[in-house]
């Protein structure tokens, strides 16, 4: 018989696998790593299920697990990532296999701009603006203070705006 932890994980996977995958994918910019880390997130959630006290929603808790798993992985990959980003600083949308990840044309520009931002800016923008978490929930997921969330979000949005203006300028120029 499946235990209650497995039941929860199965249900949570059915409900949240898409949103967790997208979160990790936007952070790592690598769909294969995102798949592995999505699996790792739900496995960690199974293993440390007893630490979920229900103070927050299971969605918030899963996102904090996904964030920790991703940050740990990125820390370990830092030297490799440095060289990778040097040659491929943004997601090359053309390289995404269509049968695995699909991104609509209308969102490609903002997605690329987002992927070029600093990690700390990117994660706050994803959680607040894309996933719609509150400031309190975002602070809980990132394990930081609410004021840090507010200030990073402010700086991140300015950086994003700058990047989008720059990109649209480039596009105008190449037309």
């Amino acid at each position, binding site marked *: *018989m*499946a*235990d209650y932890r*497995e*039941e929860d*994980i*199965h*249900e949570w*996977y*059915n*409900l949240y*696998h*898409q*949103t967790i*995958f*997208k979160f990790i*994918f*936007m952070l790592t910019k690598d769909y294969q790593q995102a*798949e592995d880390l*999505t*699996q790792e997130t*739900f*496995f960690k959630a*199974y*293993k440390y299920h007893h630490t979920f006290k229900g103070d927050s*929603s299971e969605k918030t808790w899963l996102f904090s697990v996904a964030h920790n798993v991703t940050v740990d992985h990125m820390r370990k990959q830092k030297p490799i990532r440095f060289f990778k980003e040097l040659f491929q600083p943004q997601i090359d949308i053309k390289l995404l296999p269509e*049968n*695995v*990840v*699909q*991104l*609509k044309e*209308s*969102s490609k520009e*903002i*997605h690329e701009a*987002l992927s070029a931002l600093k990690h700390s800016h990117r994660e706050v*923008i994803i959680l607040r*603006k*894309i*996933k*719609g*978490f509150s400031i309190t929930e975002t602070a809980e997921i990132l394990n930081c203070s609410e004021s840090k969330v507010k200030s990073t979000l402010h700086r991140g*949005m300015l950086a*994003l*705006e700058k990047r*989008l203006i720059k990109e649209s300028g480039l596009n105008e120029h190449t037309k």
Partner: protein
Amino acid sequence: MNIQSELDTYNRALQKVEYDLEWSQEQADLVWKKLERQIYKEKVKSRAFKIFGYLSTISITFSLLFLLVIQLGNEDSFVSGMLSKEEKLYTMEVIDGKETPVLTEKGMEYVVYPMDAHKEINTISGEPFLGVSVRKIGSKEQIFTQAIYPTSEGRFISVHYSKNETGSVEEMSRYFLPEYPLYGTKVTEINVSGQRAFLHEPTTEYGTAALYIVTKKYVYYMNNQGLIDKQQGDSGELIELANLFNFEVER
């Protein structure tokens, strides 16, 4: 453009990213299978550790013997799904060079989804594509089917299900009717073909409608898939399709 309207534009564009990006369901199912195996190994490992601690006072030979017995017993403890060995519900066929499970006539009798929904619902343009997967859990097998209905608008309606591990409609329904508000989603409880169902409709400009049906044995997930133009999906169409499900053949 003033600062506020610029901000609104960015906020809308960011919100849209969530819905414009999609991970293939097939790939997600593969990851789930890998996760299931990982969890199974972890269970065996942790059980073995517990038993090993208990038996450490006895001789090592006895401990190893016990571990073996427990591991074998564990394999049989999984509940079986809709398949029993006596009834051939599917056969393995080579399709595009790949061994693929295909439902037999007997197997089709247990499919809850309607094959002729296109005759009843105008927007559905043909028979559904039926994807079959067989999961081996220990020594038992379980069949899962996913139906993909084509629509005249170029998008698809996807339906799949998973086991209701709680065995209780009441308990499982809590997952779909949460006490806290869901960002950007309006949740409504409805009744389809006598079953409890939960309609999740987007309240923002972007997003798609999804319908979850909870029965004692299974949970059915219905939504729009593919790069759809009709952003909001069609709640009425999902309900109409769900009402054609034959839950009586569930087993």
